């Protein structure tokens, strides 16, 4: 049973409200840079919008969803109240305040630097302080997840940590360490310049710090979806989890290998030597393994559901699956999008192929397919699944939920496939308008228009999601069953102690990051003359 319902609810609502606004901005951006709209008169407005969309979708929305899920999982899987509720509220307050500051700075046009910062462009210090506050608030959550796990383990010696809790703590530690790269960049490089204490900044070094955050942050966004795959989906569709142990292996693998690979974002950069680029490219291949393990375990778990429902033969179990169940639809859509997106990801990670698509619209298409597609669709069903626990009322209308999931899936596919295509055609990303009358660009007009249609469908599906949640608060169906997570086919009697805690994995995570980043960072710091003057952005407005 959920005890601190308001805590979880407010995290979710701030997440989804910010999502809805940022989604509308995203759809507007798609439209305004398409051939359907004349060139925008003041391009700064476009970049202001991109900064707000990116900062919200990257730092606020997924972080709050992960926090809400983490707090819910403490109470639902450990079956006890959160220790440190007051601190949890402080964390929430910090995120909300930071978000407000960042939005104010962006809204006034003083921080149109996009969510990736990229100094020497320097926006208002208010923006960066806002981002730092968001991170600090989320770090309180990281600490609380660790503390709650430790207290439970002390009270239950030798008992396996429930898988949902194990996975949520892995996600928390992943974020805790991931955020350090950007935190160093903002605190020691950007803010001193933004406040006028320093004049110069090393732009190349800043990109190296940011790359430490930039890749693993994506896995942090992914984590709630993976947690749902393993611990919610099999239960919701009437199956069993194929293997509890493999789930733990996947989560600790993400923890260890998603950080020391970030330099694959810098393949085309001049400030990192080819040796470390090469090494990070090779390490990046490792991160595909936990995803491939997950695909197997979840497909096997779904097959169990099909067979328990009477499905027979090699393919017969597919027909027997509960296709009317929102969770069944969501996992299917999510896997289809993960499949396409993962294939695209293999192209990005190989530096020979990366040079054809680096910083083109392909990249934006790619991460929208994975994050907005495969991941956010799981956020939706996590909310649908937990909402009755929070509100005490069951959601009555499953049909509307199915429509919403279908619309989101179609919207994302129509949005992202042409987006990939124009990327291969050489369309650069992050531009307020394009000259579609140019002979070399005119062939991109049609796919861009199709993309806009996808964006509009997504906007509609996102608003429908909000509508369903609001309406669920006023549902008249009171009956609520006790919440359960998936059960494995074989009861988890014991797990190896290494997979019941994080000591070894945290040591590996930190060690490997320092090994793969230590030299590039140290050698850049040691180089003289690489710092350049900061360039104020939008300060005159």
């Amino acid at each position, binding site marked *: 049973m959920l005890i601190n319902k308001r805590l979880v609810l407010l995290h979710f609502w701030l997440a989804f409200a910010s999502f809805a606004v940022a989604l509308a901005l995203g759809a507007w951006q798609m439209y305004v840079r398409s051939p359907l709209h004349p060139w925008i008169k003041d391009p700064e407005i476009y970049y202001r919008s991109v900064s707000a969309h990116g900062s919200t979708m990257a730092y606020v929305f997924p972080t709050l969803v992960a926090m809400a899920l983490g707090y819910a999982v403490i109470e639902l899987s450990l079956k006890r109240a959160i220790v440190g509720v007051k601190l949890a509220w402080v964390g929430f307050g910090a995120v909300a305040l930071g978000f407000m500051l960042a939005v104010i700075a962006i809204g006034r046009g003083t921080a149109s630097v996009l969510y990736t910062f*990229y100094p020497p462009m320097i926006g208002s210090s208010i923006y960066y302080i806002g981002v730092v506050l968001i991170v600090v608030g989320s770090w309180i959550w990281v600490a609380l997840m660790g503390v709650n796990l430790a207290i439970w383990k002390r009270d239950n010696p030798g008992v396996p940590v429930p898988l949902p809790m194990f996975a949520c703590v892995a996600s928390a530690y992943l974020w805790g360490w991931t955020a350090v790269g950007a935190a160093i960049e903002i605190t020691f490089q950007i803010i001193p310049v933004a406040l006028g204490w320093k004049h110069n900044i090393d732009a190349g070094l800043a990109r190296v710090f940011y790359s430490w955050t930039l890749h693993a942050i994506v896995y942090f966004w992914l984590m709630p979806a993976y947690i749902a795959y393993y611990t919610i989906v099999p239960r919701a569709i009437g199956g069993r989890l194929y293997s509890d142990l493999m789930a733990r292996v996947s989560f600790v693998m993400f923890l260890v290998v998603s950080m020391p690979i970030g330099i694959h974002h810098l393949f085309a950069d*001049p400030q990192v030597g*080819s040796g470390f680029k090469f090494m990070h490219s090779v390490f990046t291949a490792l991160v595909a393994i936990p995803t491939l393990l997950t695909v197997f375990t979840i497909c096997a778990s779904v097959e169990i559901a099909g067979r328990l429902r009477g499905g027979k033969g090699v393919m017969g179990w597919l027909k027997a699956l509960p296709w009317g169940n929102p969770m069944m639809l969501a996992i299917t859509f999510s896997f289809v999008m993960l499949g396409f997106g993962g294939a695209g990801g293999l192209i990005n990670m190989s530096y*020979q192929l990366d*040079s054809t698509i680096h910083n083109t619209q392909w990249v934006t298409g790619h991460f929208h397919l994975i994050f907005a597609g495969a991941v956010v669709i799981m956020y939706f069903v996590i909310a649908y699944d937990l909402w009755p626990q929070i509100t005490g009322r069951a959601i009555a209308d499953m049909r509307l939920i199915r429509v919403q999931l279908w619309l989101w899936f179609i919207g994302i596919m129509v949005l992202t496939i042409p987006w990939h295509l124009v990327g291969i055609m050489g369309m650069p990303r992050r531009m307020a308008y394009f000259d579609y009358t140019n002979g070399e660009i005119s062939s991109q007009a049609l796919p861009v228009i199709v993309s806009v249609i996808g964006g509009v469908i997504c906007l509609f599906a996102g608003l429908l999601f909000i509508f369903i949640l609001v309406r669920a608060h006023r549902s008249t169906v009171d009956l609520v069953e006790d919440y359960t997570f998936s059960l494995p086919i074989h009861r988890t009697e014991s797990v190896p102690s290494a997979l019941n805690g994080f000591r070894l994995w945290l040591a590996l995570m930190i060690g490997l990051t320092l090994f793969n980043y230590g030299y590039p960072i140290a050698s850049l710091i040691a180089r003289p*003359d690489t710092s350049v003057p900061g360039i104020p952005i939008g300060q005159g407005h």
Partner: protein
Amino acid sequence: MSDNIRESPSVSIVHKIERRWAIMMSAIMLILMLTVVFTGLHWAMMPPSRVETIRIASLETNSEFSESNLGSAASKDGSVIVRVLAQQYSFTPQCILLPANTPITFRATSADAIHGMLVTGTNINSMIEPGYISTFKTVFPQPAEHLMPCHEYCGTGHQAMWARVKVIERATFFEMLKRKGANGRLNCVN
């Protein structure tokens, strides 16, 4: 029902199937990695570059990237070296002139923010960062015209930052260069 499940597929079978999958997947990833390593080492398809820095203060007055030195020049070994300076919101030269079927070395840096460049229809793609020099090599197989947009957000005029690359016949190019004299630099305009 639940008791049934607990007994029927025995733990060892579950683990065996799972282990096979894990080994197969690891093998596939290993092959992919080896492909990257092989093409990297054997075909020298390595990413740029050795790290080279440049003082931004003396960039335009007294360096390789001072204005008179920008554009395409001949190297002693018969290849062509082209120096490009990116700044908010244009490239210099704004139209790069290059010969077909000739080894080309690009050298680029920025005078202010982070920029990037790609040449449409080719694999040329690089970041351009202030304080650092990006170096990369290529060959254009035939005469053609390409667009060369800045591909990294560099400020609110970013969308207007497009240059062009004009590839012409090798003989014509070197003839034009000869007329410019020993330290001649070419772009589309002259």
